[in-house]
């Protein structure tokens, strides 16, 4: 692969160089395969760096709306079940806002990205935190489910202070409770990570703080696979 092919993908070749690479592309299937890989990467780079969501559905932004509807429905259902005072109901809450922030780029926001990056301070990426917001219908125990890549571990800490998904930045990061709620161990394979936490009622911010040099990612709600909380049943005394 040569520099002209990359520049061609970027629309940066003019005149003679453009004509030459076009001629080679028309004649060389291997070069076309290389170009196809670059063009695919071209789109992914634009999406990842500009925080645009990628929708699995032809209808744009549907997963985002679905997540909201799911969250609202789960919240209403949770309240109703709670009020019914019946032991045993399981309520799932979808994350209502999520993003990640990075110490090395303290003024950059990532609110619309599909992957939330978490890394420790000793990582080449610098310290990266993921922020997850849930609305708890009641205080209590809950099970946090994350779709995580392989990678380093993290601490899960309760955050304080308001943050806006579309504009959260390191400079205005939430405050942290002094004691972690849980820890996420380092993993060699990707998959669901499930951890138990105990949370207060109302709006809760969970901050995932990387503890290892190796970064990892968790799915965001824009991905249609954002974090979920499963409220554990409350058994009332008779």
């Amino acid at each position: 692969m040569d520099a002209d092919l990359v520049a061609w993908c970027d629309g940066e070749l003019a005149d003679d160089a453009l004509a030459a690479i076009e001629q080679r592309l028309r004649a060389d299937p291997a070069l076309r395969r290389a170009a196809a890989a670059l063009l695919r990467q071209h789109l992914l780079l634009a999406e990842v760096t500009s925080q645009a969501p990628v929708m699995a559905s032809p209808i744009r932004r549907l997963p985002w709306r679905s997540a909201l509807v799911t969250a609202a429905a789960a919240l209403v259902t949770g309240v109703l079940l709670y009020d019914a005072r019946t032991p045993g109901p399981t309520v799932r809450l979808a994350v209502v806002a999520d993003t990640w922030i990075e110490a090395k780029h303290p003024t950059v926001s990532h609110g619309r990205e599909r992957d939330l990056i978490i890394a420790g301070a000793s990582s080449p990426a610098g310290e990266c935190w993921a922020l997850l917001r849930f609305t708890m219908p009641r205080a209590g125990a809950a099970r946090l489910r994350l779709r995580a890549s392989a990678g380093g571990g993290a601490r899960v800490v309760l955050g304080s202070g308001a943050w806006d998904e579309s504009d959260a930045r390191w400079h205005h990061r939430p405050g942290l409770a002094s004691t972690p709620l849980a820890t996420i161990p380092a993993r060699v394979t990707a998959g669901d990570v499930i951890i138990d936490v105990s949370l207060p009622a109302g709006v809760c911010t969970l901050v995932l703080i990387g503890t290892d040099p190796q970064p990892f990612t968790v799915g965001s709600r824009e991905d249609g696979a954002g974090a979920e909380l499963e409220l554990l049943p409350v058994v009332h005394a008779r």
Partner: protein
Amino acid sequence: MDDAFAARIAGHRRSLVAYAYACGHDLDLAEDLAQEAVVIALRERERYFAEADLGAWLIAIVRNLWFRERTRRGRRRHDSAALHDLASDLFTADDDGMDWDGERRALAGCLASLPPGDRALIDGRFADDADYQTLAQRHARSLVWVKVRMHRLRTGLLDCVRRHLRQEARDGR
């Protein structure tokens, strides 16, 4: 609505966005053009013959939409005739056969590991939509340096993503 046909079209959607983005270097426009192409294809499905290459037909719709848009916007970057002539070859892989999500996830991880200067160059090009000349001024380097550096970075990222995907495959994902 023919659900099977709609599902087949949806299977090509990411490739359509990739082609539209290569045309205009504008992510919002690319999403809009791809979505418009899907709507047109569903509306005009009677014109599609089952034996024909669905991907090539959809690419042709995006191409026509882009030509209309290009006329309206005026050219900004150097437009490549070969990009459009070869588009069927470059973009028609059915998305079902492509691990877009896996590539994207791997790419995010690879980007996170880049040194700050390299990350700034990539962000400048893709998040800020800066051209090479602007990047050269921003980094106080020559145009050739930007071109060579971008080539090394893009090649390195391709290799990094392949390594991640191979590792995931070995891990059984």
